Each structure stands twice: as structure tokens, then as C-alpha cells.
């Protein structure tokens, strides 16, 4: 019985230590991510901001659908897909413009932006047709 108490104490200590270490890990992770992100150039940060906005809008639409119901399903789909689509295109633009990507080093950023605009145009034309 005495032994079991000691075992339980040891288990508790071990779990506390793990929790503390994962907590410390998470904090360290967060910090290093933050510091690494701060080093990215402003243009990329703008694209990231746009992407975050698009995803946020999509989430709001999904919450709205969950509350109100999905009756004109095509409208719901077109709304969500327009947000998701433009977020994806923003990510693609970011990939193509980022100077650290060696695969795209001879792609001029103007061409990448022109492609981005063209794809967004097509996306929104289709969305307008699909909105119903």
C-alpha cells in the first residue's frame, strides 16, 4: 500500500513534468515561429493578411449557414468557394513571388501577379453565374 502511494506520487510528478515540458515546448514553438515570421518581407505579409481575411470570411459564412440552414445551396457554395478560391490563389501568388523559392526564380513577379488577376477574374465570373 505504501508502495502504491509512492507509485502514484511518481506518476503524478511525471505527468506534471510532461505537462510543463509540453507547455514550455508550445511556448518555445510559438516564440520561434513568431520570430521567424517577423523576418519575412512586407509584401509577403500583405498577401498573408489578405489570405487570412479570406479564410475568416469563409468561416463566418459557414457559421451563418450552420445557424440559418443551407437552403440555396448554390449560393452558399459559391460564397464559400469564392473565399477559399481567392485564398488559394493568394497562396499561389505568394509562392511564386517569394524570392526564397528556387523553382520560380526566373518568373518575373509581374507575370505572377497578372496570372493571379486573371484567375481571380475567372473565379469571380463563375461565382457570379453560380450565385443564383
Amino acid at each position, binding site marked *: 500500500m505504501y508502495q502504491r502511494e509512492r507509485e502514484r506520487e511518481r506518476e503524478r510528478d511525471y505527468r506534471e513534468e510532461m505537462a510543463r515540458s509540453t507547455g514550455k*515546448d508550445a511556448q*518555445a514553438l510559438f516564440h*520561434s515561429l513568431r520570430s521567424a515570421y517577423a523576418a519575412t518581407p512586407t509584401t509577403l505579409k500583405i498577401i498573408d493578411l489578405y489570405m487570412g481575411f479570406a479564410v475568416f470570411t469563409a468561416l463566418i459564412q459557414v457559421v451563418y449557414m450552420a445557424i440559418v440552414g443551407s437552403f440555396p445551396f*448554390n449560393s452558399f457554395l459559391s460564397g464559400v468557394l469564392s473565399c477559399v478560391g481567392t485564398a488559394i490563389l493568394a497562396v499561389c501568388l505568394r509562392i*511564386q513571388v517569394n524570392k526564397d523559392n528556387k*523553382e*520560380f526564380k526566373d518568373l518575373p513577379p509581374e507575370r*505572377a501577379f497578372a496570372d493571379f488577376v486573371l484567375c481571380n477574374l475567372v473565379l469571380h465570373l*463563375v461565382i457570379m453565374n*453560380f450565385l443564383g
Partner: protein
Amino acid sequence: MVGKTESQNGAVKATAAPAMNLESDLFSNFSFKSFKLKTKQQELLLRVSILGLVYILAFITRLFSVLRYESMIHEFDPYFNYRTTLFLTEKGFYEFWNWFDSESWYPLGRIIGGTLYPGLMVTAAFIYWTLRFLRFAVHIREVCVLTAPFFASNTTVVAYFFGKEIWDSGAGLVAAAFIAICPGYISRSVAGSYDNEGVAIFALLLTFYLFVKAVNTGSLAWALASAFGYFYMVSAWGGYVFIINLIPLYVLVLLITGRYSMRLYVAYNCMYVLGMLLAMQIRFVGFQHVQSGEHMAAMGVFFLMQVFYFLDWVKYMLSDTKLFQAFLRITVTSAIAVGALALGVGTASGYISPWTGRFYSLLDPTYAKDNIPIIASVSEHQPTAWSSFMFDFHILLFLFPAGLYFCFKKLSDATIFIVMYGLTSMYFAGVMVRLILVATPAVCLISAIAVSATIKNLTSLLRTKSKTAVAGSSKGTGGSKASSKASFDQSQPFQKNGAIALLLGAFYLLSKYATHCTWVTSEAYSSPSIVLAARGAHGNRVIFDDYREAYFWLRQNTPPDAKVMSWWDYGYQITAMGNRTVIVDNNTWNNTHIATVGRAMSSYEDEAYEIMRSLDVDYVLVVFGGVTGYSSDDINKFLWMVRIGGGVFPVIKEPDYLVNGDYRVDKGAAPKMLNCL
């Protein structure tokens, strides 16, 4: 045939020219440059002329039935397509898109605007309007008849560019030549076969080519183009499910084998989102991309890619691997949990519909025979025999594994794609005869790689011999290689002869392929099944036009609102040519209705009369081939009527019509058989 020998000559001629170059190098650099330019222009001229000849060849070889009989639409399904195209050109696009047809499926009618794939009709109507705009007074029927050969020619051009993307321009030319005359493709795209597949194979190959180009270049513009190609494919044929499953599978394979790159992300994501949105504009497809089980693989891979690349980005940002491992563990477990939960909830609650019978029978070939007799009854849906493969592919059948070998030797993103396309399509071609058509482009491309690589190796062996003669005088291109080859050659003096013998053997095989394809096209695939030919008593050829005569009799001698009951095979033709309302037709969307007709056909006359009265039937059409020895008439199909009717109405039992398990139609037939309608 001409095209192929020219391509071999081209390879040899273009390589002989640089050999002569080295000699004239001694004269002046200026003449060297002008000679080199001329060689490049010569090569371009050769390539363009070969491609032009192949284009014309692909068109011409499909015209046998037009020359022999007349320019008309073959088979059953094309008549429906023709009727809808006629409607489209007469009434315009909005009427077509919102058309409700009360002339077929008698009491129910059919929402044609929402239950067809408009790609073929819109394409033909567009060609018709373009020709009319240019003041060519063509009839829409001519355009419909010749749409399939025209698009077959376009497919050869796409095959050329695809081959060029995967391997090199030589392989592209050979692929174009192969696909121009391959019987597997000709079978569904002769002049007069105005069916979805004629346009769909072009769209399929185009989508695949544009996607591979997008993956190779990583540009958003090409991915957008491939999304449009996918849209065209979705509008043309139900087989687009193959694309939407093959491409995610390909992405998955690339991710697993570690060949992923940023270009893959750009290409797949852009194509998936835009393609999905565009595809949902077709009413027949509707919301299937987010609700049907067949399309879930694409969505799953889409989410997987987001997670994967996000992890990749975090790994790049973090410099410490231990932290990253922890993060990785958390993210991966949570992502898998969320994904599995979503999939499970969706499937269990029925929101995500399971695989439909048509496609499920591809995965489990025995499913249709037990559960859905209509799918099992179509002769095109039977498993393929070896003889069909040989008939449709000839030498490509053994060039296919050779091509796979070459692809594996030089693995790249593009060759992995073509290998996957080839293997999956060959599996499905083995399950259903009809799908040999889908496998044909892959087989042609891979065989073209084998042929092109082999012939290039052989001609380069030939070339080295002529180069060693001048290797000593100047440092020519690959001079050191030539000298080493020269020493090699001296030890094996028969290498050049062997190369020539192998080349001649290759030419012989290719010419046999061309002869076989032409023979097959002429004999087997050029008969319009609506006009039949037979041998008379004295061996003379008798052409009988009974089908069309019967339909025109219906058109001229029955009241305009008469309703005709027949087996569903003839439904489209009756509506198109007889212009009368039918009870069931080839669309086979309502199994119970067809089973009612089957039951009427196989019940005793009084019961059948009741059923026909309830359906308001005025005329019954049956096809009987006893007088002319025509073997695919309604007596032959009768057992299927029994099976399908029995599938819904257990009153009809198949053993009632058989004598000791045998199907007999003479005096010794079963009593129910003798007394039924």
C-alpha cells in the same frame, strides 16, 4: 504509313546533315551558320508536314461508312444527340437549357436540360453557326456526322504536344500517328457516330496535357487552362470521374514518393478549385463535387495538400527540429482525426452519397450482374476478352510494356503521370469493353515512347559509324564519344548491320499496324447499325433499310399524338425519325418504367393488354430478324426483358421461359414463351 516512314527518314536525314557540317566547317564559319539554320528550318518543315498529313489521315480514315452508304447518323444514342442539337440550332441556347421534353418516357416526360451533357451539342451547334457565318450553307446533320472525325484529328495534335511534353517531339509525332489510326479510338469516332465520346476523348487528353504542362511549369495560367479543359470534359461526358480521381491519385503518389514541389501545389489547387466551380455550372453534375462519394478523393487530397504544405512551410521557418517534431505530431494527429470524423459523419448520415452503380461495378465487376440487370445487359459493359485487346491495339499491346520500361528509366513528373494513366486505364479497360476507348490515348503515348526511344538508339548507332570517318579531322560534337564508339564498333563489326536489320523490322511492324488498322476500320467499325447489309442468295450484296422505312411509316401513317411502345433500344430513333412519343428510351433513368415495358412484353396477351391500356399505348414496335438472318433482334434480347421485368415485378420469373435451362424459340419452346406478347 507515309507519315511514319517520313519520320524515320527525318530522324536519319537531320542527323546526317550535321555529319556533313563538320566537313564544311573547314571552309568558313559563315556557311556553317547558314547551313545550321537551314537544318532547323528543315526539321520544322518536316514536323509540320508530318503533323498535317497525320491530321488529314485521321479524318479520312473515319469516312468509310459515308463513302459506302451515305452521310447519316449511326447507332441509337447519336439519334438523341442529333435531335437535341437540332432543337438547339432551331430554338437557341436558353430554350435548350430549359427544355422539358414530353415526347419521351410517356407519362413522365424528361427534363432534358438538366439530364444531359451539353458539350457535344454545343460544340456541333457552334461549328454549325461558324460555318453559317462564313456563308457555307451546311445542314446540321452534315456537321453532326463529321464532328467526331474532326475532333479525332484535333486529338492527334494534342497527342503530339503531350508526347513532346513527356518525352520529346519524336515521340510526339509517333504518338500522333498511332492515335490517328488506332482502332480502339476509331470504334467510337467514325463519321456518323455522333456520340459523347467523340468529343470527350479530345477533352480528356487536352485536360491531361494542360495539367502536366502546369505541373512542369508551375504557372497559374496553365493551371487555369487545365481547369477550362476539365470544364469542357465535364460538359461532354460522364467519364470525367476518371479525371477527378486520377489527378488526385497522381498528386498522392507524388507526395508519397517525395517528388512534391511548389509547382505541384500551384497546379493542383488552382485546377481543383476553379475546375470544381466550373463543373458545377453543368446542371446534370450539380453539387456532386461536394456531395458524391466518387468526388471525395479529390477533396481529401486537396485538404491533405493544405496540411502537407503548411507543415513544409513551418519546417522551413523553424530552425529547431525537435520543436518541429512536436508540432508535427500534434498537427498530423489532429488533422487525421478531423478528416476521419468528417468523412465518417458524412458517409454515415448519407450526406455523402455512396458510389453509384455505374462506377461501383468498375471496382467490383460482379456487382452489376447480381443487382442491376440494366447495366449488366449492355453488351459494351461486359469484361474484355484478349481478342478484343489484340483487335483494338495490335502491336501497341506489346509496345506498351516496353514503353513502361523506358518511362521508368527516365522518371520525371510527366512520365509518372503517363505511367499511372496507362496502368489505371488498362485495368478499367479489362473490366469493361467500352473503356478500351479511355485506355487508347495512354497506350498510344507509351508505345510511342518505346518506338521513338528504340529508333533513336538504333539510328544513333548508325550515325556513329559515319561520324568516326571525320572524327579524326576535327573536334566534332561528341568527338570523344564517337572515338570510343569507334573502338567499340571495331570490336563488333556487325553492330551497324544489326541496327539496320532492327530498323527494317521496326518499319515492317509499323506498316503491319497501319494495314491492320485500316482493315479493322473498314470491316468492323464502319457499319451504321441502322442500315444493314447482307449477302443475297447469289452472293450479291443486299442493303436493307428496314429500320428507317419502319420509322418513316410511323411518321407518315400514325396520328401525331400516337404513343409507341418498344424496347428501350429503339426509343431515341423512334423519337428522332418517327417523331412520335415513346414510353421508354435509351436514357434508362427509370428502371421501374422499363421493367413495366419488360413485363408487358413477357406477359400473356390479356395481361399485357391491361398494362398497355394503362400506359395509353397505341402501337407496339418489335424487331424480328428471322427473315434476313439478322441476329440482334428482339427475340435475342427477350431474356433481358424478362430479367429486367423480373427484377421489379417478381411475377415474371425467368425459368418460365426456358426449356430445361435452354432458351428455345421454335415449337419446343416453353408454353409461357409461346403465349406471351
